[in-house]
């Protein structure tokens, strides 16, 4: 069972169509899933799922960064977590990494730094972000663009972040997260 966390600035927003449904479309082919807005997440939700995907948001939507207290569960969970864009920025901050201004919009060349289970080789991906996560001792860098870290993994947990939007042109990353990670 996959839990998709709706990271949009409010529940039942117009952003749901664009940032949650495309993830759900990939997930539903592989497993059962359910969606919760981050304001509504309960302990039961976190118990019920096997893995968790944090959605991205619109470029101007940085609401989750002002509600980090809603993501304390990230420090306790042992389940695999994938944070996409705003999801990666949020989980980065929860674990103490810093965000810096960094704008990338559109197809972006990505270089893998290390072999990893999400995607091998170099590729291009659709970016839509105005911040990035600074390098820290907490996360391993798995892939980067010319400007910033694009894929990272917590050194001690099965928690990773992808700054680009894999649901747009790289759905195999979501598939591997769901089936292999």
């Amino acid at each position, binding site marked *: 069972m996959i839990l998709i966390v709706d990271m949009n600035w409010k529940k*039942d*927003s*117009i*952003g749901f*169509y*664009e940032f949650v*449904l*495309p993830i759900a*479309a990939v997930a539903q082919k592989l497993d059962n899933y359910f969606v919760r807005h981050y304001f509504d997440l309960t302990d039961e939700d976190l118990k019920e799922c096997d893995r968790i995907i944090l959605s991205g948001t*619109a*470029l*101007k*939507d940085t609401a989750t960064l002002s509600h980090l207290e809603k993501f304390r569960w990230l420090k306790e969970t042992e389940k695999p977590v994938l944070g996409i864009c705003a999801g990666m920025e949020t989980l980065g901050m929860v674990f103490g990494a810093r965000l810096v201004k960094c*704008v990338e*919009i*559109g*197809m972006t060349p990505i270089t893998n730094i290390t072999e990893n289970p999400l995607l091998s080789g170099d590729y291009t991906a*659709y970016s*839509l972000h*105005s911040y990035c996560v600074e390098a820290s001792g907490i996360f391993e860098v798995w892939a980067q663009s010319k400007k910033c870290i694009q894929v990272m993994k917590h050194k001690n947990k099965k928690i990773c972040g992808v700054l680009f939007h894999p*649901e*747009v*042109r790289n759905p195999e990353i979501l598939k591997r997260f769901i089936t292999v990670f």
Partner: protein
Amino acid sequence: MRLGVLFSGGKDSTLALHYAAEKEEVVCLITIVSKNLESFMYHTPNIEVTSLQAEALGLPQLTKTTEGEKEKELLDLEDAISQAAEKFKIEGLVTGAIESVYQAERVQRICYRLGLWCFNPLWKHDQKALLEKLLEKQYEVIISGIFAYPLDEKWLGKQIDTKLINRLVNLQLKYGISPSGEGGEIETTVLDAPQFKKKIEILDSTIEARGNSGVFNIKRARLVPK
């Protein structure tokens, strides 16, 4: 949130408007009239009909004409969105993009520069399901342009119904045509939609077609009660 919709009068921008209006306040339409019939960015057939559609929707429309030169047309788009932001105090823009990264990233960049939100409520949705959504919501949509093999003039002016959707899906399987016309294979014109207060009646039309390229030109039309 006050939103403007990048509106071409086709099924995608009309359906995007529909979704946007269910969640936020749509306050204006922004329409780019391109003189370039092969524009990469903008829908071109029957763009004049958008003024009737705007009236049917009860929304003010801001139109801007562009020569349609690649990239220069983006400056015209930015100018139009900027005018809408000033005139109608919009905080965000809605587009009907489904798959085109080319269009989406250009509009996202413009919105970023102007400090506006950008929403694409049809983004990455299943194209057949979107076509079926039009029928479910009782849209009346006709094919107003064809621009790919093996489409021909027999498609022009046809209303989108279950049979036509199945034919488009078959063409996708056989020729790789995008069923929603996202690759510019077809263009559409919406004659009626749930949010229209009146519907469009076509009084006079012509078909101009050559091989696998053609348009259904609405010469005269009017709004009539639904």
